[in-house]
């Protein structure tokens, strides 16, 4: 079982992911507890709304579809796909077409958003460093992801037997870096970029993703709050 693992492989595919997960979780908790006031989507629509409409809509719908795709491909095991009658060929077809489409959608949105952020003076003036960095890192992640997919149109490489079990291993505390040894370099770079994104995540506007308003579905329209319960 214990195959030889290079120090670098151990560092990149075991130590680093856990470090990133730790930063991600503790970072969110820390920020929430110490600075709830800065927790917002940081909307800039008041300052510019036409480009935002195209950019934000395309990016968000694209990236959300991409996330669903990643969930199906990486979290749900291959055996389940097969149980649903999804053979290799069919899976690959759906993944490449769907993945490319939603990825390109997200990329298009990101390009518009980035252009907007730097060209509209009002938006630029109201931008923090984090707002700019986030767009850059997201561009990196999405472009590398698209390149990796394009490099594997033929489907020679099956990430469902390598990256996917590696990721599930990380998440279930049974890390196995050997699974990552033969992964093509573009995929590796994409994963590293994602880790960079997750590491800066809690310290940027991206915290808004964790605040997706779920309770809104059943909430009453009018809310009353007491100042404080009375003490006897």
């Amino acid at each position: 079982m214990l195959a030889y693992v290079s120090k670098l492989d151990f560092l990149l595919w075991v130590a680093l992911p856990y470090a990133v997960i730790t930063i991600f979780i503790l970072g969110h908790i820390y920020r929430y507890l110490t600075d709830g006031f800065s927790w917002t989507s940081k909307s800039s629509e008041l300052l510019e709304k036409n480009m935002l409409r195209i950019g934000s809509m395309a990016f968000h719908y694209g990236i959300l579809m991409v996330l669903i795709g990643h969930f199906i491909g990486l979290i749900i095991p291959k055996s389940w796909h097969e149980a649903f009658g999804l053979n290799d060929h069919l899976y690959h077809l759906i993944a490449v077409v769907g993945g490319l489409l939603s990825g390109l959608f997200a990329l298009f949105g990101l390009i518009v958003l980035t252009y907007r952020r730097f060209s509209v003076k009002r938006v630029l003036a109201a931008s923090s460093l984090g707002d700019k960095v986030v767009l850059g890192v997201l561009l990196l992640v999405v472009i590398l992801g698209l390149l990796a997919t394009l490099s594997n149109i033929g489907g020679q490489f099956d990430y469902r037997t390598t990256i996917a079990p590696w990721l599930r291993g990380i998440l279930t505390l049974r890390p196995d870096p050997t699974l990552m040894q033969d992964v093509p370099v573009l995929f590796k770079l994409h994963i590293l970029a994602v880790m960079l994104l997750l590491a800066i995540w809690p310290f940027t506007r991206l915290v808004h993703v964790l605040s997706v308003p779920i309770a809104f579905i059943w909430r009453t329209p009018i809310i009353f709050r007491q100042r404080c319960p009375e003490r006897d």
Partner: protein
Amino acid sequence: MALKAQLSMVINLDKCIGCHTCSITCKNTWTNREGTEYMWWNNVETKPGIGYPKRWEDQNKYRGGWKLENGQLKLRLGGKLFEYINIFHNPYLPTIDDYYEPWDYDYENLFKAKESKFQPVARPKSAITGEYMDKIQWGPNWEDDLAGSPEYMLKDPNIDSELEKEITLEFEKTFFYYLPRLCNHCLNAACMAACPSGAIYKREEDGIVLVDQEVCRGWRFCISSCPYKKVYFNWHTQKAEKCIFCYPRIEAGLPTVCSETCVGRIRYIGVIFYDIDKVKEAASEPDEAKLVEAQLKLFYDPNDEATVKEAEKAGIRYDWIEAAKRSPTYKLIKEFGVALPLHPEYRTLPMVWYVPPLSPILQTMTKHGYSEYEIFPAIDEMRIPIKYLAKMFAGGNEQLVRNILKKLLVMRMYMRAKQLGREDKFNQNLLKEVGLTPQMVEEMYRLLAVAKYNERFVIPTTTKEKYENVYREQGLTGYDYIPPCDFCNPQQG
């Protein structure tokens, strides 16, 4: 039945001189920070006029307030599904240009400019980008006192094509009045209903509507959904902000800053008891012209024994009940019935009410050659102002406006007769016609004309001893350190 106490305000438009003191003192107190330069939690508009933000009453553009759909109350903005789909970009959000781009002047240049042939000037500089602005195209109160009329005046959303024709024809005899506006701390607040994070809430004790800055996530639907455009987006903190009814002052029994500093002394603040169980029903009244009546039915007479019992049952404290009994706003709104809510057809049940202005009518009538004693029957001839006022304050119900204007006129005539010692000459039938007694008229006159500070503002203080360790906190509460509440458990939902 479940009674609740609500702080309410009445603004007597007849006496507003449009000095903007209220707006300035409010701004100096609350919105002089970065990101809030363009916000006027209290602003005063000239009506007819476009207003602030431009054409805020045009709900086809901004989608504020509620509408009835098959008898069901729905946000005009759209349902929850609409908000989820459009959360990434809210199609109905106003942009900064709908308000105005805030600016400051480069005063430094006046001191630092090198010697030259021309005098140095202080050029305007955008408060957002910091860049020079060549030409300022719009700003707060750009159209004050009908500046730029008729061009701007006729863009008022309350003026439709029919009214426009009449007004244009009558332009030489035009009327205008001032409309001070602030958050109405509505009973059926649309801002609150639209907030996906549940950050906006009503205070149980006094009904003040607040945005919890720790919970707001900047989804910005409240801004669209408030039909009065009284929630603003702070572009610096990227969260929503609004009028807080000066709650730190209110808790100490003091009126809001706008009321305190009002030069005309035209503002009143008091407690009103209403039935929370009937709010939805009142807001769902199908006939827009009956909405004011429906809202009035929610308010209970604080001097009635039964109301006091209900209030005690609801846990409302003794001093609040006593304050409600003396409430100037209850008197003006319900007892005398001389105040109206702004745009009741938005169905948010606003709690800032207005005594409609007589002056445009008096002015027009004098032009027509009526004397003060003939004025009464002539009110009906003043079609344009009445129709316009009814659109703003009564869901189009001209009769309501007419009744109030008559009451105000009768009060003037009665008091004039009295003060000149000509009571015998006063036609008592006039009182009967408007449903007032001599005592009521005199009380109303006192309240509207000479009432002192503690008659205009009847505000019970908040007692904190029960839930705060005042001794421990002495000296700790200030601008930079406000200790967190140890046992707060804000409940939502």
